[in-house]
């Protein structure tokens, strides 16, 4: 079973690497170094300790903002999806915050709260929440009325209805929000680090960009992607399988 499920992954990653190698050979430019060149940079950065340090810092920021955003965003999304009035009242705020450029929130947070870790995480969270709200709200609107009525008749109460009816119904939406959310949070963290932090992958990537060192950028990107890939295989997918095991 393990064998069967891991095999396509390995194959497709190999294909990706091959494609990359071919493309790099074909364009032969500094803008796309070969996998080996990137690997060399990766090794250098790992040995120097720079990569583990910056990666750890970034991961911590991503994790903190991600959970905050997912929690708060889901709560708001559920409420807006279930109450027409609150939805109407909140909708224009949602659209404003959804479309506020990351730059604006980040600068305002930094200027108000100083260039602190808390300000950085707050900025990312504020940026991400509206996306979670939008996705979870659609989910909340699509919850089966049959089941909600059942919960009402049998007097499950708010908490148990939330836990046993609402949240499981939202499953696919929350998973979607989490997956793409993790990626978005990471991208915003990159900007936050560019604009006001002295550590983290975003800080490093932008330094490499100044030097037009694409190999360096890719090395750090790959390190992060590898962590996410491991999280996927080790945490998210097993969780998802468990959550979906009721499906016919």
């Amino acid at each position, binding site marked *: 079973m393990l064998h069967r499920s891991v095999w396509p992954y390995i194959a497709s990653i190999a294909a990706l690497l091959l494609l990359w190698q071919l493309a790099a050979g074909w364009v032969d430019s500094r803008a796309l170094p070969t996998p080996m060149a990137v690997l060399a940079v990766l090794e250098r950065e790992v040995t120097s300790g720079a990569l583990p340090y910056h990666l750890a810092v970034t991961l911590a920021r991503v994790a903190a903002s991600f959970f905050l955003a997912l929690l708060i965003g889901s709560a708001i999304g559920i409420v807006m999806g279930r109450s027409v009035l609150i939805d109407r009242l909140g909708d224009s705020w949602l659209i404003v915050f959804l479309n506020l450029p990351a730059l604006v929130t980040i600068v305002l947070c*930094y200027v108000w709260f100083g*260039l602190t870790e808390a300000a950085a995480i707050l900025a990312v969270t504020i940026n991400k929440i509206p996306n979670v709200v939008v996705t979870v709200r659609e989910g909340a609107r699509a919850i089966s009325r049959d089941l909600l009525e059942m919960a009402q008749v049998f007097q499950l109460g708010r908490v148990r209805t939330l836990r046993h009816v609402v949240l499981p119904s939202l499953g696919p939406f929350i998973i979607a929000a989490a997956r793409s959310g993790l990626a978005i949070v990471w991208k915003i963290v990159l900007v936050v680090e560019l604009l006001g932090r002295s550590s983290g992958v975003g800080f490093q990537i932008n330094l490499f960009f100044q030097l037009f060192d694409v190999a360096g950028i890719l090395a750090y990107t790959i390190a992060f992607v590898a962590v996410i890939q491991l999280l996927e295989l080790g945490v998210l997918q097993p969780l998802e399988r468990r959550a979906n095991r009721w499906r016919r």
Partner: protein
Amino acid sequence: ALPLSPAAAREAVRIGVLKFGTVNWELDVIKTHALDKKEGIDVQIVEFAGRDATSVALLAGKVDVIVIDWIWVSRQRAEGSKLTFVPFSSAVGALMVPADSPVRTLADLKGKRLGISGGPIDKSWLLIRAMGLSQAGIDLDDAVDKVFGAPPLLNAQALAGRLDGIITSWNFLAELEARRFRTLVSVEDAARAIGISGTLPLLGYVFDEGWGRDRRDAVAALVRASRSAKQILAESDAEWDRLRPLVKPADDATFAALKAGFRRGVPTSWGQAERDDAARAYAVMAKLGGAELVGRSPTLQPGVFWPDVTY
């Protein structure tokens, strides 16, 4: 005797810089040779990954000093932030074309694809535009196909032969210079063409006026330390070799170009003449750049230059 040890008494000066930027080279020399300690201050380097990050840091109070141009300072003063400026470098950019380019004069650029880093209010671009107007009688703004973009990207485009010319700052030009690009006009030429001395420092250490007034000695010490560092960099090649990991040149030729460029940019004098030049240059750029560049103040604001420092 004072109860405090000399180290504890030293005034801390936090400077926000680009990690691989030219300012950091100088600061590294200051720290390595303990020039700050000798002058009785403690320079603390806060590294960032983007130029904009340093200005955010200054406004958010995370650093005391950043390096930026005095046009920006003037605009901020007009908006109510009382910042002030002491010179760091007079090194400026240039307009470069490939060595084999048929372009010989500004007028030849008509209809050509010109990369401009820093956008439409870039100072080098504005001064070169002014030169075009006064000498060749053409406004490059209308005459060329402008491509604004991030400096590293423009360099890559230029090297790939996708641009007929490029205006960018001198430290990015070094790489082009090393790869068979030639200077069509330098910004110094452009400045001279409109009657301004070529050695006008554009970039400087910028800090809050109030902060500086409370620490006149510290500011003076910083300027002295900076000049000592420049002295070392001007004279010692060994020092440059030590700095090489921070400079991160692509190759030896680029390294040489960067070294020469830095040395050329060391400001030699900073007196009333330079300040008057600055005011004149400001007026020219304000006319071309318009409100986008200077905001509500068509003339250089008083107090832009920290009065204590002249040489």
